Structure formats: C-alpha cells, structure tokens
C-alpha cells in the first residue's frame, strides 16, 4: 500500500476517525453531505479574534488593501517600528498565546467567523482546505484581508508568493467562492510523516497530520489532545478510539 497517496476511500476513513476524536474533544467538526451525492466534506466553524495587519497586505503590492471601503479593518499604514523582515514582529496582537507583542500598527482587532471545509482533491490525491471568513455583521473578508490574517509564522513565505498560497476559488461542491490553501505541495510535506510511519509500522491519520500542518496557517489549530488522548495505534485499525 502506498502511503503517500491518499485515495478517496482512505480520505473518508481518516475523516471518520477525526470526527470521532473531534466529538470526544468537542472540537466541532461535522461531516456534511452534498445533497444528491455521495460526496461529503468535513466542516467546522470557529470564531477568531483577529488583527488584520495591512502591512502584510501592502507587501503584496496589490492596490486592494486601501481600496476596501469597510472601516472595520482600518489597519494603519504606519510601518512597524522594530520590524525588519522578521515575521516574529508581525503578530496578531490578540492571540492569547502571544503575550509579548511588538507590533506598533493601529490595526483593529475584531471577531471574525471562520468556516473551514476539508475536501478531497482527486487531482492532488490529498485533502484540501477551503475556508471563508465573515465579520459578525456578515461581510465577507477580501483576499487581502485573509492574507493579512495569516499566522506570522507563515507570513514570510506568504509574502514571497501570495498567489501560490491562498487564493479564491469556487468550492467544488457548493459552487460558492471560498479561499483555498494550495494543495500542490501537500505530498512534499506529508512525505516525511508518512515515510516515518511506514518505517515504524505505525499508523497515522493522514488527514489529521495534514491538518496539523496547514491549519495553523489560517488560524485553525488542531488541539494537542488529538495526538495524546487517543492512542495512535487505534486510529486506523479500529473504528472506535476508546
């Protein structure tokens, strides 16, 4: 069995396991089925307190960042005082985990609703993360705003080639515009995980491991308990985690 390629059946299986764990941990994932089809996807909504940092958006050299008429994200154009090119100074200043922040922009922070979907991509043989974000008033975020909400750890890479990282696409099953995290290198960062698992004859939940890598980019954290509460050996060889 080739571990590197995720076929749709395995994808479904991994999703079901993830769902079981999610229920235990009350992490909020559900399985949505598309009407009139056998296809489905994992879905989760979450509220996030986000500071939109327009400096990151401006680095893309797109004119979009200032053309947004909405005032709720009036990120200032003030440069960061201490920021070199280091992403560690560009932080969402409201993340609870990040105590020491050095950002000096007057970005406003607001609560946003994020909706995450995990779909299977036949072309890439991998899961793909689609998401969309709204303000609490129901306004969708623009692509620039989404870029500026990316976790600082990934900000540098994003700035180097934003269009290769997060773009807008039509949701394959719903036909609505979503943001998507590009999947074409998924195999590359999954390979070491899968190789190690195979070498050690240890099962690994592809979708869970993949999610732990890509999720944080867009504010979706995978709690550690997914890897501690349930014994990994149970993940793929049985149907119930307990």
């Amino acid at each position, binding site marked *: 069995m080739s571990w590197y390629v995720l076929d749709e059946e395995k994808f479904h299986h991994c999703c079901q396991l993830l769902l079981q764990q999610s229920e235990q941990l009350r992490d909020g994932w559900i399985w949505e089925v598309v009407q009139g089809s056998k296809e489905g996807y994992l879905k989760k909504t979450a509220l996030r307190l986000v500071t939109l940092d327009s400096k990151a958006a401006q680095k893309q050299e797109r004119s979009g960042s200032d053309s947004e008429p909405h005032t709720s994200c009036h990120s200032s154009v003030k440069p960061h005082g*201490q920021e*070199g*090119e*280091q*992403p*560690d*100074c560009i932080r969402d200043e409201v*993340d609870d*985990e*990040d*105590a*020491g*922040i*050095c950002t000096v922009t007057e970005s406003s922070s607001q609560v946003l609703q994020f909706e995450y979907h995990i779909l299977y991509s036949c072309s890439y043989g991998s899961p793909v993360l689609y998401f969309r974000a709204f303000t609490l008033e129901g306004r969708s975020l623009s692509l620039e705003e989404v870029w500026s909400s990316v*976790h*600082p*750890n*990934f900000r*540098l*890479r994003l*700035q*180097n*080639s934003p*269009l*290769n*990282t997060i773009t807008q696409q039509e949701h394959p099953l719903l036909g609505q515009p979503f943001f998507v*995290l*590009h999947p*074409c*290198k998924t195999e*590359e*960062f999954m*390979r*070491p*995980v899968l190789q*190690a*698992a195979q070498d*050690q004859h*240890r099962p*690994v939940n592809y979708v*869970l*491991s993949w999610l*732990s*890598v890509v*999720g*944080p980019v867009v504010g979706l*954290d*995978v709690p*550690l308990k*997914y*890897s*501690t509460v349930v014994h*990994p050996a149970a993940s793929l060889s049985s149907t119930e985690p307990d």
Partner: protein
Amino acid sequence: MSDSAESPTETQKEEPQPPADDSAANDEKKKIDVLLKAVGDTPIMKTKKWAVDRGRTVQSLAQFISRFLKLDGNEQLFIYVNQSFAPSPDQEVGVLFDCFGSDGKLVLHYCKSQAWG
C-alpha cells in the same frame, strides 16, 4: 509564554542568541532538552541537542532553526512531533515536552519544504 519567557535575552526582536548549547545550565524547571532531527534532504544541524526554555514557542524554535540553516524566504520549515503531526506555531515547547517527551528529552523532527504552491 511565547518569547517573553524568563530569559532576559529573549526579546521581540530578532534573537541572535540561540538556546543554550548542550547540557550546561539546564535548569530543570525552566528548560527542557530538545533533540532536533533532520528529515529528508534538510540540512542537519551541527548541534542537535538544545536546552530550550519551556515557554519558547514552536514558531520561535522554527525561526531559530531556519536562521541557523540559512533558509531563504521561499522555504518553510516544518516541525513534527512523534513524526506524526505538526504542533501549532504558538504551542510552547514545555507543553510538548510534558506530553510527548521521553527519556528526558523532546525529539522534534524538522523538514524544509516549499510547502505550498
């Protein structure tokens, strides 16, 4: 938490000082032993064992490794625990050690990749 842990050398700016090398001043309460293992064709760090402040985040550690290995902006460094998942960048290494450490150390695998696109 994050970078403003107890160590006075850790500031919000670029941190030229890496975590203390090898054993030496390893205060059990505040530092944990981390063993860094390269994956694939990622360059291997000359020093693999580090004493890291518990409060240091994964992101901070990843940045340190990236600078050490002189990765360019197109490359993303990934860190894995148990070779099976990537801890969140905001996760503190102390917590990871508590959950996944064994034999008095936390083994972290790191890998550089183009990641996306």
